[in-house]
């Protein structure tokens, strides 16, 4: 009986290992250790760069990002339209290639301590064996508007269909749920710091 229990336990462990898979859901991130994030009270989220074929991917991710930043209680966020207006005034066409001076100018114009910008690399369904599942990958960066340097960067990715969905018919996430998880994971790296 004891031997049977051991086999059962080993079997369950193997199943769990298979279930979690080798793909880590932990986002890869970098935080500048010499920066006190406590001074960042208000941020501006710039329009994200859309590197996918989904027309509204960047806007959809930006909305969730703003909502989650606010909900996390970490920072206050500037109204999105105000960001666009400030970029227009300063003649900044794209948020994907900002130089130090532009970061500082935007910070002054918007009255924020940091800017968040980045890109959406994946936003769509992917084929995984016999199922299709939502796949979202984003890269976010935070720049200090005082120095103009990057103080936080993160790449977060998520796939909606896990081992249980593929093999046991468990519920797969919707695209919106995967998106929310990916954004939450990214923000958590900042919140945990």
């Amino acid at each position, binding site marked *: 009986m004891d031997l049977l229990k051991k086999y059962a336990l080993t079997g369950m462990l193997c199943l769990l290992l298979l279930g979690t898979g080798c793909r880590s859901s932990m986002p890869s991130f970098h935080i500048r250790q010499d920066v006190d994030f406590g001074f960042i009270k208000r941020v501006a989220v710039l329009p994200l760069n859309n590197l996918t074929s989904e027309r509204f991917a960047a806007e959809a991710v930006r909305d969730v990002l703003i909502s989650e930043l*606010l909900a996390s209680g970490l920072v206050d966020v500037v*109204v999105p339209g105000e960001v666009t207006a400030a970029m227009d005034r300063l003649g900044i066409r794209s948020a994907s290639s900002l130089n130090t001076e532009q970061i500082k100018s935007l910070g002054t114009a918007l009255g924020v301590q940091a800017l968040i910008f980045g890109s959406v690399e994946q936003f769509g369904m992917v084929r995984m064996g016999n*199922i299709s599942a939502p796949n979202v990958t984003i890269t976010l960066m935070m720049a200090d508007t005082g120095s103009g340097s990057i103080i936080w960067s993160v790449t977060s990715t998520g796939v909606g269909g896990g081992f249980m969905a593929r093999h046991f018919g468990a*519920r*797969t996430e919707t695209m919106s*749920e995967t998106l929310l998880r990916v954004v939450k994971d990214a923000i958590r790296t900042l919140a945990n710091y």
Partner: protein
Amino acid sequence: MLPGFLFLALGAFLVLMWGCVGPQQYVRPDVDVRKIRKIAVLPLESLTTDKNAGEKIRGLVISELLASGVDVIEPGEVSRVLKDLKVRSLKDITVEEIQKIGERLNVKAVMMGSVGAFGISRGITASYPEVSVHLMLLDTSTGNIIWSAWNTAGGPSFWTRHFGTEGATLSETARKVVKETIDALF
């Protein structure tokens, strides 16, 4: 040993059956949002292939706000003011424009946002409705975001996936999302 195993199995079954997503919301600490009893709901941005998704959800938002006892400015009146103020894009609306809208419509807050998903998605064995919305309430005196919520609903239910039962329709899912989100506020 057996009851423990059964308990574990039941827990796993429940996790498999249900997701755990609800409204993600923020309420500005120094503002009593629940005291606001009159709101203008601006047209919502549609980030889906359905161009009318924003208007459909806006209608539901207005209904739910009214049902919660909040007075809502007539959509036609909002459109007229937006036209008068020459507001072209709602996603790029500035604090100055929000203040002017507040003045013209005599409201302390305006609601704006977007619809991130609105349609039927294809799953492994079943098609299912998926709706996600982002709503924000902005103070018309400061232009600050005083409330923000993101919510989603839909996805294939356990019974639809495995037993082919009829799931919620797109309209029911949209109503659920909006109701949950507005209920979180009022």
